[in-house]
């Protein structure tokens, strides 16, 4: 379902944008305004991260946002309520993103049920490999949610097949080694990696880690289906305030009418 939604949008735009926020950073009010600005700027899909105290796969910028959000008192329940609010208010699909312990402590099935009720469409759990995901897959399936798994350049073809078999909605392809928020060199290596991903699945491919400006997005056109803007929007908010978000996002692609 999510996959179809995205494919439909791709009829208008060759490359889609998926953006990311850490809920409650710097505040839930700001988070809401950021989502609003992103939707207005034409973002096709968003990841909403529930902060976790041990975000091992995130780089310093998102890590910091996780910590501040928690310090400001954000709870899992508050984040889910926020997800529900934006899902009702804005007409794009929203994915939850968090570490597995958040789901596990909540109860994986209860968590999925709550997500579905909230109108969220799926989840990305970066520390949950398919091998450990039986319970999660069952819960996501039971509630018609898309479990989005991750591929990396070091993932073998065999393993890509295995991972994409259980993935729904889209496949998240990390561009390189490392954590979120570092520069990625968009090069031939990336090309052949994305070709391998493409061969493994018919699902839309979202490329993440290090996409930060129009040049990067241009490069991805024709190679990936979605460009994921994570760390860079947090930086924009930190440097220019919420006002900076819309122009930044709009600047990533040529205007629709063009």
């Amino acid at each position, binding site marked *: 379902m999510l996959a179809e939604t995205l494919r439909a949008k791709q009829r208008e735009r060759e490359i889609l944008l998926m953006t990311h926020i850490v809920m409650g950073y710097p505040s839930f009010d700001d988070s809401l305004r950021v989502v609003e600005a992103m939707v207005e700027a034409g973002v096709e899909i968003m990841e909403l991260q529930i902060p*976790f*105290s*041990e*975000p*091992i*796969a*995130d*780089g*310093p910028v998102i*890590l*910091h946002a996780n*910590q501040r959000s*928690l310090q400001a008192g954000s*709870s*899992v*329940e508050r984040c889910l309520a926020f997800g529900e609010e934006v899902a009702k208010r804005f007409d794009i699909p929203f994915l939850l993103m968090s*570490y*597995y*312990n*958040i789901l*596990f*402590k*909540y109860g994986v099935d209860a968590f999925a049920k709550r997500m579905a009720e909230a109108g969220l469409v799926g989840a990305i759990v*970066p*520390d*949950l*490999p398919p*091998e*450990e995901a039986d319970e999660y897959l069952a819960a996501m399936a039971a509630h018609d949610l898309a479990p989005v*798994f*991750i*591929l*990396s*350049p*070091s*993932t*073998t073809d065999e*393993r890509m097949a295995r*991972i994409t078999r259980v993935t729904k909605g889209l496949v998240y392809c*990390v561009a390189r*080694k*490392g*954590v979120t928020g*570092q520069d990625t060199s968009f090069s031939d290596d990336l090309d052949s990696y994305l070709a391998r991903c493409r061969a493994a699945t018919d699902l839309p491919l979202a490329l993440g880690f290090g996409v930060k400006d129009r040049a990067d997005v241009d490069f991805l056109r024709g190679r990936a289906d979605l460009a994921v803007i994570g760390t860079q929007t947090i930086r924009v908010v930190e440097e220019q305030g919420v006002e900076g978000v819309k122009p930044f996002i709009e600047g990533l692609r040529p205007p629709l009418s063009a």
Partner: protein
Amino acid sequence: MPEPGYYGQFGGSFIPEILVATFEELVQAFEQAKADPEFWNTYLKLMGSYSCRPTPLTYAENLTRHFGGARIYIKREDLNHTGAHKANNVMGQGLLVKRMGKGRVIAETGAGQHGVATATMAAKFGFDCTIYMGEIDVQRQRPNVFWMERLGATVIPVTEGTRTLKDAINEAFRDWVSAMDDTHYVLGTACGPHPFPEMVTWFQSIIGLEARRQVLEETGQLPARIYACVGGGSNAMGIFSGFLDDDVELVGVEAGGRGLETGAHAARLASSDASLGVAQGYKTFFLQDDDGQMKETHSVAAGLDYVGVSPILSHLKETGRVRFSAATDTEVVDALSLTIRKEGLIPALESAHGFVQAFKEAPTLSHDDVIIINQSGRGDKDIFTVADAFEDPGWKQFIRDKAKEYDAR
């Protein structure tokens, strides 16, 4: 048939996809090393010629007399090179790194003990070395930072989170996902994703193998009980390993901090404050809140001040094979004090936790019984903490004078 890396419901490997290939390589290297008797021989030889293995099993005659019960023996991991059992693990992993052909190691450290051990191993093997250490620990444990730097390691203070051990672990993982081709992450205890719990336990099992042989040689009998402190669980698993199949009671002692009732402790298995969770790559009991966020822990012993615990120990608790208790900061300082005075031994604050429980139980046993305490490390590395715990005025004056001397220059 449990999956590899699982101990009952505990363990596993919850890692970002980018690390999967690295872990596969590591598991393979480890399996090959285990299957190759030459590897273990090389390891024994290294530990015998570079560290001081076998470490002695010392009869604590005065403590035995003092408590008037079981005969107390002490396994002397404090006599290892760099002063703790941590040496066993790092040297073992060092050999594995050589086997894998990598040239750089990274590690987390809390007390600094594992950082110094890793930096030492890196110097010996000629590896580049980066150590992640919470900013608060960098401040508290400056002597160890000093030695790590002298050993050629880069020490990176971690400024996020609680700025202690668990955050250093996260940071080490972040480094690793960026640099795994040439880098090995030398995890310091029997925690983390598979194969670390099993691998660290394997290297540390040298303690238990020696201790079993030694206690039989020395006393002709198996011990009634064995006591070991539990931070991540590596020294405990190390000595327990030698006796799992024997009729020997195994006792793990966690950090009771200011008392279990205060919440300021690090007792994951001896208190009911912890619950099952998944973090830092593995499933075990964590001290976490209802949302699954990790809590701050407390112990006078930096090396026990950690939110998680070895999944193998969680399993052994669940099966009832290992009994757990906790020792408070105050009890620890008292046991340390008594041990120093009676035996001339200076256990690390961490190790002293094991002594506390042994001292409580020794009088209830008979002189026919033997008990072993694992002295995982030496305490003279802890002088700043120990002097503070004893509120020593002469020490404080010394530090003040030294500061004045530095200001004057």
